[in-house]
């Protein structure tokens, strides 16, 4: 065993020295290889972080949201509707929610107005999200007027601004008193936007939804798990599309690696010729070349991965943000929590090291089977 390790160690030594002798060529290859890993790893890390963030955000939402449909469109929950649901086993809490969208023509963006149940807000006051604070230049204590859909002007005092760390969900939020909300939108008394329900046992959720459909045929229960799954597959799909587009780059890289490995310089050929003349076997030359490939691959892989990590988590993925994140006027600013996933690293390894190795196999063999006699003469 020890002799085996010794032998590999000497081979690595020799390979490193031989790589250092041809700095220009190998650094070029290393650079392009690292760049490829960097691009692919950035995409993978970024989408994965977005996926985890979405999961974390949705973890606090109600398990079931019940909407009422009229002619297939979302409609208000009339008075008495919630009572009609009655007692369903497993439902811990059900409450009507009040929220709606408001288009602000000043900044040309939509706000989400909401009357929270669990937060005490005085009449005439509002609490706003951080993106709104930025876009309208607001601060606590300022007054702001909104023209409602009925044409009246409503003025509110800003009591508070929501904290930055909740920005992903609260960027465009405006919280107000229930009476203000009803007055602003002319919401009829006793009506709600939808019903939120919390279910303690995750395995009961589907049964609760089925019971809801039975007792209220005009309702549409939306399950949190469904929303989560949709998000997960959307982000996966975006990542997959990016990777499929980038496969052209992987192919180009494969061709480039093949060319590099195939275009042996006269000096390299002579080197291999001399090695074989002094007793190296074809198998030894293949092993040396294999170590060369492995060293380059691993260096490029780690360098590329670390660079991608920095790019995504410290520079907010400036290069791919617009493709992967989506778009909105009041887009929340947020930093993603760093996260590395095993499957993702394994996949990335398959995408980069595998094509490289496949591409250099034939050139390596060609180099290794060169006749010492012909090269040294030529």
């Amino acid at each position, binding site marked *: 065993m020890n002799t085996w390790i010794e032998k590999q160690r000497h081979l690595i030594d020799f390979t490193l020295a031989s790589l250092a002798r041809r700095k220009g060529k190998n650094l070029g290859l290393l650079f392009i290889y690292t760049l490829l890993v960097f691009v692919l790893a950035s995409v993978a890390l970024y989408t994965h972080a977005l996926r985890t963030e979405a999961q974390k955000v949705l973890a606090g939402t109600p398990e079931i949201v019940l909407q009422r449909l009229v002619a297939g469109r979302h409609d208000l929950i009339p008075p008495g509707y919630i009572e009609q649901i009655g007692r369903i086993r497993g439902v811990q809490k059900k409450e009507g929610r009040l929220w709606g969208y408001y288009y602000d023509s000043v900044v040309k963006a939509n706000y989400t107005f909401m009357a929270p149940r669990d937060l005490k807000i005085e009449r005439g006051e509002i609490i706003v999200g951080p993106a709104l604070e930025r876009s309208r230049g607001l601060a606590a204590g300022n007054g702001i007027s909104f023209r409602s859909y009925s044409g009246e002007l409503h003025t509110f005092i800003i009591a508070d601004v929501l904290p930055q760390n909740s920005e992903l969900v609260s960027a465009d939020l405006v919280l107000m008193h229930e009476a203000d909300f009803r007055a602003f939108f002319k919401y009829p008394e006793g009506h709600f936007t939808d019903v939120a329900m919390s279910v303690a046992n995750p395995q009961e959720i589907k049964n609760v939804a089925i019971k809801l459909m039975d007792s209220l045929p005009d309702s549409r229960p939306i399950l949190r798990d469904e929303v989560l799954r949709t998000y997960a597959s959307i982000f996966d799909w975006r990542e997959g599309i990016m990777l499929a587009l980038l496969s052209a780059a992987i192919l180009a890289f494969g061709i480039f690696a093949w060319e590099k490995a195939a275009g042996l310089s006269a000096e390299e050929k002579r080197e291999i010729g001399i090695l074989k003349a002094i007793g190296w076997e074809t198998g030894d030359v293949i092993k040396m070349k294999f170590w060369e490939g492995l060293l380059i691959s691993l260096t490029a892989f780690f360098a590329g991965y670390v660079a991608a990590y920095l790019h995504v988590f410290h520079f907010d993925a400036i290069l791919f943000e617009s493709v992967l994140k989506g778009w909105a006027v009041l887009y929340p600013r947020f930093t993603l929590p760093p996260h590395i996933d095993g*499957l993702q690293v394994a996949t990335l390894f398959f995408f980069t090291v595998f094509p490289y190795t496949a591409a250099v196999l034939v050139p390596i063999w060609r180099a290794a089977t060169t006749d010492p006699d012909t090269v040294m003469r030529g």
Partner: protein
Amino acid sequence: MIFQPAIIALLLAAGLSLFMLLVASPFAVQVIRHWDIASGSEQQLKLERLTYLFSTLVAFVCLVQILAALLFVFNADKMSVMFVGAMCAVGALNVNAYGFPALYLQLALFFLAALWLAINHADSRARDYPLVKLKYLLLLAAIPLFGLSLYLQLQYFLGLKADVITSCCGSMFSTDAPTLASEMSALAPQPALLGFYGTIAAAVLLSAWHWRQRGDLSGYAAGLGSLAAFVAAIAGILAFVSLYIYEHPNHHCPFCILKPDYDYQGYWLYVPLFAAAAAGMSAGALRCFSRRPSLVHVVPQFTARLAGIAALGYLLFALVASLMIWRSNLILLD
């Protein structure tokens, strides 16, 4: 659902592997028909030179296959969140009829790839390449299997529909379903425990014996012992090890232990188990060639080392399993 990164990687690996094997197949036919180590003809020299290329190529394909089997299971587990009713890899594999066949074929190819690598290693150590024809015959035999694997994976991944309600591991490994898996799950804990430790101890001892003694008899015994221990280990995981990990008297699933909820404990069990099984069975298979003149010294040395790996692997597996049972709060036997 084909645009999942891991799925693209798996299909890429399967496709490229098949392509490489197909490229190597005309050469394999040539070797089988014309290889003659005693001849000094130009054709023989050409074949000898080319065999370096194709051996490296196939060795590479085999290594990729071993990694792909791991990635396949890993990916199935990760995908389970996307299907209604799926809680672990079982649900994701059950989404259509191709999931489990694809998994079984991946595992079979894993063992085949390991065997090929072992034969290749022994062959390249001997001066006259005594196993070269066998190696390429195996390669030709493996091509349809690799083709089938690519087909099954394509069918499986293309047929993944997120709106299918799949069945969870609870129904598949329940003790009264009419399947082999549930037969194993229904084994009473006490005999299963005895069989599990008995067979694994036998495999460890036989492998250790071969490691010391290097004879033919011990080699075959170690190979058979490894095979038996592999079956016993899987049965044991189904029958009681999983119960101890979940601390639940009725949950027999062998896939849920791979999940992060259980700290990926499954990988600690399966990686040593599969390494040991592959090494032990390859050692047994290689003993068939110990009488070839040029392999008289090579094979015993190599199989002894493989048997050593098998013994260590099974020992590690048994220790990990015992540790999990010992740490568990479940009391299955008084």
